[in-house]
């Protein structure tokens, strides 16, 4: 029997038999279902994923009519990352005119609200110029990045140092202090960029520092939507599971630690966000098929439980993509098609 060419979650090439591929898909969806307490994929859906992953082609795509909207986090930063020497406005034009992007995102290379606040006037002026030249909708994006508020980088005691010393209440107090500062920065920067004309604000890599990071973002979203009801806010996550770094934080009576995407989206909606971006982590020891089946299972449950558009994160290391700097096209296109056509989401 011919072996199926595929990859592991670290990007390395591997070959699977048909039965091994089927087993990986079944185990991937089962893992998500058990962890998230959501429904596993049906036999038909697993069969569809099998067809996608057993296809011999280098590249696969969705069927005509199934295309979705693509939003891009850290767009201008990524052109800089690969060493292309362009001005940020030129980077946005590359996304708009060359990459066929449906939306673009203006951002600073130090991609955090805290870092951007002192130079906000420069960010506003350049965004205003970009908006004159661009036609596609534009986000301003940055990370809540609660960790940047701790010593030695920030003013708050470092809770990662306090916790191993057993100073739990001090660590929690430090997180709460950091949260208040982060909310102020997110609201200040979000307001300024919206006043300059941005179509939306993207809180990217939300909850990277756990439950206080998530709560700060939800509260900043609430405040911004109260101030600007028409503002589009996208909340994109850092990972699939809210880490309980504090452990006792709640939003609208719901404990944040331990929430998976289908529960995260409920709170994101309550806060007033417009678009939600779940991020499902990739396991490098498992095949891309296993990872995609797992990511699609979590995302499908999230789509089913949401009233707002869902744009799954599908960069390197999330959404069934391998954890490599240059994700192979065969892996990206398979995960892309699988995610769109099985989870029935609204964008990536």
């Amino acid at each position, binding site marked *: 029997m011919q072996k199926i060419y595929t990859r592991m979650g670290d990007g390395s090439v591997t070959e699977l038999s048909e039965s091994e591929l089927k087993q990986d898909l079944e185990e991937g969806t089962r893992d998500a279902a058990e962890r998230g307490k959501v429904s596993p994929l049906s036999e038909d859906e697993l069969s569809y994923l099998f067809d996608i992953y057993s296809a011999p082609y280098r*590249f696969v*795509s*969705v069927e*005509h*009519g*199934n*295309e*979705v*909207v*693509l*939003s*891009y986090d850290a767009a201008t930063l990524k052109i800089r990352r690969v060493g292309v020497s362009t001005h940020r406005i030129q980077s946005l034009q590359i*996304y*708009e*005119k060359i*990459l*066929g*992007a*449906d*939306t673009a995102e203006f951002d600073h290379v130090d991609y955090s609200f805290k870092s951007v606040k002192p130079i906000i006037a420069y960010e506003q002026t350049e965004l*205003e110029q970009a*908006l*004159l*030249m661009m*036609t*596609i*909708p*534009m986000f301003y994006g940055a990370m809540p990045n609660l960790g940047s508020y701790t010593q030695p980088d920030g003013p708050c005691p470092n809770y990662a140092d306090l916790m191993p010393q057993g100073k739990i209440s001090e660590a929690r107090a430090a997180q709460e202090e950091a949260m208040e500062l982060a909310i102020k920065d997110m609201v200040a920067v979000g307001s300024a960029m*919206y*006043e*300059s*004309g*941005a*179509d*939306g604000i993207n809180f990217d890599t939300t909850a990277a520092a756990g439950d206080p990071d998530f709560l700060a973002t939800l509260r900043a979203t609430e405040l911004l939507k109260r101030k600007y009801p*028409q*503002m*589009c806010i996208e909340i994109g996550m850092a990972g699939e599971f809210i880490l309980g770094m504090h452990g006792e934080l709640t939003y609208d009576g719901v404990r944040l630690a331990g929430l998976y995407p289908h529960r995260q989206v409920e709170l994101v909606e309550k806060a007033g966000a*417009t*678009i939600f971006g779940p991020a499902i982590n990739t396991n490098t020891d498992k095949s891309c098929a296993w990872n995609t089946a797992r990511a699609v299972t979590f995302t499908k449950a999230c789509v089913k439980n949401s*009233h*707002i*558009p869902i744009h799954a994160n*599908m*960069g*390197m290391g999330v959404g069934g*993509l391998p954890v490599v700097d*240059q*994700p192979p*096209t065969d892996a*990206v*296109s398979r995960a*892309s*098609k699988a*995610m*769109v056509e099985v989870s029935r*989401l*609204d*964008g*990536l």
Partner: protein
Amino acid sequence: MASAHSTASGMGGMRTAGDLVARMQMSRGMKIKEAKEYVANKLKVSVSALSDPVLMSEMREDLNLGMVSTSLFPGSAKGIEAKFRIAELLDIEINCVNRFKDRIGGKLRVL
């Protein structure tokens, strides 16, 4: 990676009507099906036509909604000009268009 996703499952941005569908998600919180149907209805085309770069290039040229190959169409709407027309077509508020109007709308007063 961005180009792989765009080719595999993206609407196509300004090559098609991807930016218009995105605007309905962003301004009205519409899911993809509803957003596509809304834009198709406004353009009086089928939903499947929204992702066709040939049909949509012609449509964008006819309606002056901004195009990819702007150098081939001197005098066509670009950037903020196209967004004025998109706001009118889709019957939505576009933040930077409104702020542009505010900035140029005030009376010039020389002290």
